[in-house]
């Protein structure tokens, strides 16, 4: 019992150093991981699909897929895993950390790029490095069409208009015979250049176990 405890603690410490979460946050994340996986060592797509709160989200499938997408692990691999372990789970969570006060501008830029990359990967489902019209249409449809207020045709039209806009921004002088291949990552960055991401793509992870505070001598 004792040996395995220290080994887990070491793993946590290593993860904490690598990802920038505090040790306490890693412990809490681990608890959450165990809750989701039903006390197993890996999470599969079915585990995530069971979450009721996620049902309300229009792009639920894309989000679940993002956890299993190997590109978000920054290992250089592509493709999709069937199940993920705790380390991969935490790495995906890293994309949602807020910038700290101590970060330099370069660090903040890098973090911003990582977050944009995460979203880019969500759109680019065939891993070819560009978001084609079809891929973009799919996302828009997910967001809109099932409600009935906007039909499939309208959703398509909206997607087309958006793509046109992207194209006009990035490749302003396109010849009539040229075909806009798709949104590359650089174009993606360009479109969302001014967007203030610091509060949009952040999840505030709590530091302290807020459920019980002990009264008594101050530490």
């Amino acid at each position, binding site marked *: 019992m004792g040996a395995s405890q220290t080994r887990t603690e070491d793993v946590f410490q290593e993860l904490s150093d690598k990802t920038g979460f505090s040790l306490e946050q890693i412990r809490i994340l681990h608890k959450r991981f165990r809750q989701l996986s039903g006390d197993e060592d890996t999470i599969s797509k079915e585990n995530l699909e069971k979450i009721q709160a996620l049902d309300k989200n229009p792009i639920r499938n894309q989000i679940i897929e993002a956890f299993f997408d190997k590109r978000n692990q920054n290992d250089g691999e592509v493709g999709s895993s069937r199940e993920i372990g705790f380390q991969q789970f935490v790495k995906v969570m890293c994309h949602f950390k807020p910038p700290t006060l101590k970060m330099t501008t370069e660090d903040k830029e890098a973090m911003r790029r990582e977050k944009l990359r995460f979203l880019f990967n969500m759109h680019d489902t065939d891993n070819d490095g560009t978001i084609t019209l079809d891929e973009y249409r799919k996302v828009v449809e997910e967001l809109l069409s099932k409600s009935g207020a906007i039909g499939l045709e309208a959703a398509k039209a909206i997607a087309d208009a958006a793509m046109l806009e992207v194209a006009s921004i990035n490749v302003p002088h396109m010849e009539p015979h040229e075909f806009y291949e798709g949104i590359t990552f650089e174009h993606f960055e360009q479109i969302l250049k001014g967007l203030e991401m610091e509060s*949009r793509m952040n999840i505030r992870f709590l530091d302290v176990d807020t459920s019980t505070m002990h*009264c008594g001598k*101050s530490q």
Partner: protein
Amino acid sequence: MGLFFNPFNNLICILLGISLTVWFTMLLVFIIVPAIFGVSFGIRRLYMKTLLKVFKWATLRLERGAKEKNHLLYKPYSNAIIAREPTSLEEEIKEIRRSGSNRDLNSASEFEMSDIFYFARRGVESIMDDEVTKRFSAEELQSWNLLTRSNYNFHYISLRLTVLWGLGLLIRYGFLLPLRVTLAFTGVGLLVFLTSIVGLLPNGRVKNYLSEKVHLMCYRICVRALTAIITYHDSENKPKNGGICVANHTSPIDVIILASDGCYAMVGQIHGGLMGVIQRSMVKACPHIWFERSEVKDRHLVAKRLTDHAEDKSKLPILIFPEGTCINNTSVMMFKKGSFEIEAKVYPVAIKYDPRFGDAFWNSSKYGMVSYLLRMMSSWAIVCSVWYLPPMFREEGEDAVQFANRVKAAIARQGGLVDLLWDGGLKRGKVKDTFKEEQQKLYSKILVGAQEDRSRS
């Protein structure tokens, strides 16, 4: 027959008289006298330790009961992993688009690439922290404190637990509640009476000294009336004259907790009724800042009076709760900047309640003041910690809002509270959850509505 009853009656009267006398003497000796001198016998801490042991036992029984039936227990206080901000879909999308570089829209009209941010974040939030998975799990239950109002697992109570709970009920309502109510009345009554007397004296050092003693004594009695067990940390940073003391706000009891350890000038609106009587008599003994209802709206007047008070070094530090409303003690919300525009030293204070003994949070939309006080007085105890933080000044080039946020962050960090950005006023208007299709409907309505507007114009 008559002869038989007479001595019996007498006996009863004598017994009653004796027990009442004993009762009041004990009250005096163990509670009121220590309150006057500010010493403590340590009875309350002993009480707290005993209670904790009992709670632990009760929890184990509950867990055992649940395990026998092979069910999961419902945890009312589970670890929050993330802080969720309950802004609505429309607001967030507007925010996202406003900060985008392409257009400056005032309404969320056309589909933008950045809209997906909102859904992505919400989705990951749900994965991280959803109500269902979090609350029903096989982990250790936090302790149950024998109050039905905080017990959600009542299927698993055995006979022994029920007996214990019944005993607890008897003790709380039969013994503790009357005791506390007596003390409360004594405390308040003494406050009104003694401050009026002190108010008759001419202004001077004697008056200030006496007023301080009187205030402290009465607040200490009130603290005992609530059985509040308070631990003060870092008392060397206690607020001094001519400063402003700023604290986070969970319940009206915060005032009593802080004021029993030091003298403050209170700020507030004059009420009618009993509160008004108390306020008027308090202000006779030492200068508090009470506003008429009409004056409250006038921000300049408020600021001026506060500044005048703070500049006078002989006056007590002002006590302000900048959040403006009671928060549920896991987070610190937006501090209103008004208190920070005044040129004075700010002494931040963090107050954190221990939830194991009862929830001190006052949800003013749910409970009135009287029912809240009754709830407080019929729970076991109120245990909290107070941290006095070192004073802070407004720095060069810092405006009131930034200063307020800096103070807020310091308080949140010390008390282990979450530092949230939004306004406490949102508490009154909860955001409803919608299902996936409704979310889509809402989103598409936003787009379609705008398109219709455009085609019309």
